[in-house]
């Protein structure tokens, strides 16, 4: 069956050797140029931002690491940061404190929309500056309703606060029933015992399903290698918190886990000039957040109809 039929109006066939030579030349010409083009097309790979090393490629999942594994990984992270930034950081794997569940309350009467919290967060958590990743987005809403469709994200008046508006900063709400945790295909994000939803940056595959799932638009993706100026690096780091991330992984507010798990306030709270932010342990009846949730009559959970049960409460002064 493989006998080639001749074409209807065929010219006399050239001698076999000439045909062989021709076909050989053709094949090799096409193959050579084709392979050259293929190899050349791979050129941009030479410029890859941090090609994964074997160690990083094989790194275990956070929950499956033994303390020895974690120690090794922390040391490696320290080495990498030292190499990149010239500064030896302190990278810790902080565990949740017992009997602690964090809650954040934000006083909408007080917020003046200065965005100091946004930039404090960027500084504390080693977020990329170019492009700048900001975990917190402050919405300017006209007085009268909480209709987010009327929000202005990019207000830039000469000074704040402006008459007729109030300001609402939005960041990860650390929901009790987080949709992002549900949809992650590789369990790279989960909720810890103290209520913080964390991300294992070395496990995330960057599919951005969690970003689509979040009803509060709280998650951020590293579209390229994050750039942090060396002199701005915060060397006090946590594995699940503010250690420098890589290209292609998700990140988000984690309640400054490197601060809160040693008992300190998050950076956004400390820098707020109006004292609009309150944070603490809801399981402690004497904490200020317990007081607020007991005494204020109106407090708001954003999009509560989603059933996410956020741990972020907005309230007004009475």
């Amino acid at each position, binding site marked *: 069956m493989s006998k080639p039929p001749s*074409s209807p109006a065929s*010219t006399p066939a050239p001698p076999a050797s000439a045909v062989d030579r*021709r076909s050989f030349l*053709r094949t090799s*010409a*096409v193959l050579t*140029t*084709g392979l050259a*083009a293929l*190899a*050349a*097309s791979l*050129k*941009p790979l030479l*410029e890859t931002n941090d090609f994964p090393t074997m160690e990083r490629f094989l790194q275990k999942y956070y929950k499956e690491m033994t303390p020895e594994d974690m120690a090794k990984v922390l040391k490696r992270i320290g080495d990498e940061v030292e190499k990149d930034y010239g500064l030896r950081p302190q990278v810790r794997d902080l565990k949740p404190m017992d009997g602690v569940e964090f809650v954040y*309350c934000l006083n909408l009467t007080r917020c*003046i929309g*200065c*965005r*100091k919290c*946004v*930039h*404090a967060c*960027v*500084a*504390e958590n080693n977020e990329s*500056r170019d*492009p700048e990743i*900001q975990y917190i*987005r402050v919405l300017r809403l006209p007085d009268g309703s909480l209709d987010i469709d009327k929000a202005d*994200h*990019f207000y*830039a*008046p*000469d*000074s*704040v*606060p402006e008459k007729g508006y109030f300001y609402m900063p939005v960041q990860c709400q650390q929901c009790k029933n987080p949709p992002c945790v549900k949809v992650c295909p590789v369990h790279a994000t989960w909720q810890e015992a103290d209520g913080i939803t964390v991300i294992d940056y070395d496990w995330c595959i960057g599919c951005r399903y969690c970003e689509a799932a979040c009803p509060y638009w709280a998650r951020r993706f590293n579209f*390229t290698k994050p750039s942090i100026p060396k002199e*701005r690096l915060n060397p006090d780091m946590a594995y699940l918190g503010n250690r420098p991330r890589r290209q292609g992984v998700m990140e988000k507010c984690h309640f400054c886990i490197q601060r809160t798990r040693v*008992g*300190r*306030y998050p*950076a956004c*709270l*400390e*820098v707020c*000039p*109006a*004292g609009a932010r*309150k944070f*603490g*342990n809801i399981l*402690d009846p*004497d*904490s*200020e957040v317990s*007081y*607020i949730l007991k005494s204020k009559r109106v407090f708001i959970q954003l999009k509560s109809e989603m059933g996410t049960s956020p741990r972020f409460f907005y309230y007004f*002064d009475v």
Partner: protein
Amino acid sequence: MTTNSKTGITVALLCAAFSVLAVAFLSDSGGARGNRPAIPLVDTNFLDTSTTRQSYADLVRANADLSDFDCYVCHDKKSPPPLRFDANLNLIVAEEHIGPAKFSADDIGSNELAGIVQRFRGHSDPVSAFLWQSLSNSQQLVLVNFKPSEQSSKQAREIVVPALNNIITNAGQSFYEPGRFKGILLGAETMLLMQQNPAGPALAHLNRLLLEDAYPLELSRNRQDDIVMGHGKHGRNNNCFNCHNETNLTLLQPRDGRDLTFADSAQLCGSCHGPTYRDWLAGAHGRISGYWDRGSSPFSEDEIRDLPKLVDRWRHQSDPVSGFVWRQLSNPEQVLLANYQPSASNPKQAQDVVLQALSKIIGEPSIYQPDRFKGILLSPEPTSLMQQSQQDANLARLNRLLLEDAFPLELTRNQRKVCVNCHNPHAPPFPSRKPAPGPHPLREIADMAESHAAEK
């Protein structure tokens, strides 16, 4: 064209296409899309909320000069001071409670003088430009040739002070013009006073305040002495004796007739501002920093402000609390602290001893005993803690606070402030803008604020 040659042509074209591709790929450079600019900070149009004011209790603890609170030096015990109102029904505050309007030569130290002269010389800002123009040529020459020597300073002072005082009188007009003061941050008292359209001495006061705002580093003074009445709108509280007790000027009087000392001023504020006061008691009002976990805040090394003084007090047992602490130390520790010299290059040993001692004390049951803490002014927080039930976490917190109150100058305070630390009781709602002492805990914010201000 035969099939064969068609094939040949196709193959040739393919080879050409591949070659072109290869060249194109090799010469290509990477590309990335442009980034959106980051969302910037916005300037706040209310003023600095750093706790730069001192409360009466702070002054007591600091063993500071309390003569300002000794009202009967000037006033008569038998008759309350009279209140006078101007044409606009604004309370006329006595000059003695404001401070002199005009400058004297002593007001301007040599550093400040150098700064002022430099700004005059440069006259790059409108106020300096105006002042420069008000000088005669010879006066300008003197300032141009100014060098920080005693002779030169005397001459310069003789020029600068009258120039400034001229502004203060300013032919009975306010020195303020929007263009002149563009980019200059005005104090709360200044803005408040401006709204009142003052005349006479109040106007001089206003001009003085404006000058101080224009030269914040050179002409600053403690504005706590300045009383500008503005507590609430529509002239509310335009009467001293809404808050002060006219029969006993050392006391404050809330509406329910209680007598409060100046140290308990928070209760006075709370008698009208109930919800805020209750929030403040629970820790939910105002700025806060440090630890949400109140129980876990033992002293850290940066929280020992004055190690030599602390060690000194302890080893000399100069007060009951120091005696108590000293007795808790073991012999070797006592010996170590006894031999400690402030000039020691390595204070670490002493520091460790001190920290250990403090931690141990914090871990113990409540250290409060009335005679031990006699004479020590207790803050509201430990007072209220002691009224509550005894719980372990609170105990640690309580002991920490008691130690802070016992050693207010030597240890950093971790407890919340009282109202007057942030709020000017006479003028709403925040104090005059003054740079907060020390760097901001978050460097970048501080830098940004600076560059922000520099841009303006």
